[in-house]
């Protein structure tokens, strides 16, 4: 027994790093193709070294691992890449080290408005926006020529669904029972001028606004697609990857998907057949609000090197390093300055880069609340599968979200 204890403590000591030399900051990153590791190396100085550890692939699993370890005040996490919907939850729970006002100011000025908004909780910028993602409407040029739609003008979901339905084309979306579906629902509601919840500072007592005109507009779009010939056979289990496959199939016509999907089609781009336009409008005459995604970097409140970790944020999210990350991963910068870096400009055609930036300016983050995972789960329960969505869905989901937040219903 004593021998085992000695062995365990020896192992623990080995893990906790060398106190005498340069401290090591451990950055927990979401899996990527080496961008964050390169940035970590770039930002290691004489005073500290930054190494990376990789979190699970699934955003929800990333949240679970971080939340459980932070709840136990794990000092081995110094920095972490956080998905925007969970930023508020972590900040509210006191897991994130405070960022000095001066730095907050810098980050805020540097980032796109949507990125800064997604990084803010309780009027404080709680994570440093690192990379930003948004969705655009991808289309097959040959298909829109055949269907005769003018893609230089903004299109609505109804138009897209009708055109695809009439011409035997499929529209690829993300409608599996997962976070990606909430992203779609949120973008549709925001696009109709609504919000899923307001007054989110009140925590569980936030006002649930999904039962509204905007909610019904969103439900209309989803049920129209689900009942149309344009809906792919795998609609109810579709995610980013299957959407890409549907889009490249013979019947592929339209797809909403994140920026990185461009890289999926190699140099050939399906025989130069891929076009892009701004995210479709939910209602005629009202500007669309594309989904916002990305990563903000937070410093852990329980880190042994908290001050150094906060200090490192500045380097990690500098426009130059955002560009290094973008070049290696295709995950685009969270700032206009990042976009201006020469290597970023080369990643995509100039008009696509412009479309990304424009979309990011108007993008709508998912509702900022510590209870987003509950709200999102409740939306997935009531709005999935898409074929069951009808005009009653917003009302049912509003009631269900309320019950879940009040602990009256299981999610």
């Amino acid at each position, binding site marked *: 027994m004593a021998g085992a204890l000695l062995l365990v403590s020896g192992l623990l000591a080995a893990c906790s790093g060398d106190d005498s030399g340069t401290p090591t900051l451990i950055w927990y990153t979401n899996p990527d193709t080496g961008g964050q590791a390169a940035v970590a190396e770039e930002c290691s100085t004489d005073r500290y070294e930054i190494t990376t550890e990789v979190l699970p692939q699934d955003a929800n699993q990333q949240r679970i691992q971080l939340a459980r370890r932070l709840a136990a005040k794990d000092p081995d996490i110094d920095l972490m890449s956080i998905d925007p919907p969970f930023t508020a939850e972590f900040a509210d729970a006191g897991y994130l080290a405070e960022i000095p006002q001066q730095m907050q100011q810098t980050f805020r000025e540097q980032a796109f408005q949507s990125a800064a908004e997604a990084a803010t909780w309780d009027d404080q910028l709680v994570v440093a926006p690192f990379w930003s993602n948004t969705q655009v409407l991808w289309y097959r040029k040959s298909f829109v020529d055949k269907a005769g739609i003018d893609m230089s003008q903004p299109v609505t979901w109804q138009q897209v669904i009708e055109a695809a339905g009439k011409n035997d084309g499929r529209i690829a979306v993300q409608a599996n029972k997962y976070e990606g579906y909430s992203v779609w629902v949120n973008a549709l509601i925001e696009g109709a001028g609504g919000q899923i919840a307001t007054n989110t500072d009140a*925590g569980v007592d936030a006002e649930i606004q999904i039962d509204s005109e905007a909610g019904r507009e969103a439900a209309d779009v989803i049920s129209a697609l689900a009942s149309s010939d344009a809906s792919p*056979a*795998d*609609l*109810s289990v579709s995610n980013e990857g299957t959407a890409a496959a549907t889009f490249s199939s013979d019947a592929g016509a339209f797809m909403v998907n994140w920026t990185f999907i461009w890289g999926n089609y190699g140099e050939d781009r399906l025989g130069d057949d891929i076009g892009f336009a701004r995210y479709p409008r939910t209602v005629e005459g009202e500007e669309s609000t594309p989904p916002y995604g990305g990563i903000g970097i937070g410093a852990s409140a329980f880190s042994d090197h908290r001050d150094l970790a906060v200090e490192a944020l500045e380097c990690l999210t500098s426009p130059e390093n955002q560009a290094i990350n973008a070049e290696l991963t295709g995950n685009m910068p969270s700032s206009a300055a990042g976009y201006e870096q020469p290597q970023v400009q080369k990643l995509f055609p100039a008009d696509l880069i412009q479309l990304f930036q424009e979309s990011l300016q108007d993008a709508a983050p998912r509702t900022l609340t510590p209870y987003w*995972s509950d709200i999102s789960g409740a939306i997935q329960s009531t709005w999935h599968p898409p074929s069951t969505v009808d005009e009653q869905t917003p009302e049912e989901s509003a009631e269900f979200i309320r019950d879940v937040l009040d602990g009256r219903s*299981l999610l």
Partner: protein
Amino acid sequence: MSTVTAPRREDVRQAQAAESDRTKSENRLGLRLVAPAVVFMLLVTAWPMLQALYLSLFRYRLTAPDDREFVGIANYTTVLTDRLFWLDTWNTVLIMVVTVAVELVIGFAFAMVMHRIVFARGVIRTSILIPYGIITVVSAFAWQFAFSLNNGFVNNWLPFVDENFNWFGDHWPAMFAIMVSEIWKTTPFMALLLLAGLSQVSEDMLEAAKVDGATWWQRLWKVILPNMRAAIMVAVLFRALDAYRIFDNIFVMTKGAQETESASFLTYRQVIEQVQLGLGSALSVLLFLSVLLIAWLIVKLFKVDLAQARGEG
């Protein structure tokens, strides 16, 4: 059987009365020797159970520790009056009944093959057991790929299924896929337990029945099955308890979509995903109680004697 064991218990009592100092001290030594193991068992099993029982009385979310609040049995009333809980319990019971029934039939056939086979015995026995040697998650992925609309082959192989049929797009097809993967994975285990029972059936009895002119069917129903009742019940008990805790297949194949969630999956989501420690603990206590209930029901209803099945009776 009770007539056989009863006098023996009296023997024991008499023996206890007449215990010598030596047996007493041997008993004490025995207690001391098992004590560390008992303490260890209590630490690793009883302690977490008590902790879950305690936590289930609170409204407690891991990411909002300051809002922790004692709510008594409120979590239990929430759970027991919730539609989702009963839906998931029904799903679980359905999966348990269907898979165990199917496995019992196929497993028995496999056991007969393994028992009677004359040539290539080792190879055939091993190949029947292979699915059981595969990790559940891996087999669930394999079946998920097989049924998948994007890269599966099931739709091409089955003549009466449309090529664009989405197995995971609706409740019943999804449940079917989950059950198929569960049955494929665990039938060998059932077969193995039944094989043990089958080899206990005396050849003499079978021969006697044959001489008396019993048909194959009569020998099966009148001789073989009655004589392996204990083995069958143990197999059913083990598999039913396992099936009631089904999790991996559902996690991999549907993530609980299309209302295919099981009781364990619901508990997992409350505790791990939603970090609702209070509500989740209440669910895990209920899950534990239902597993106990099922075990008790099977033991009572079918009068299983576990000791006899282990060859101790």
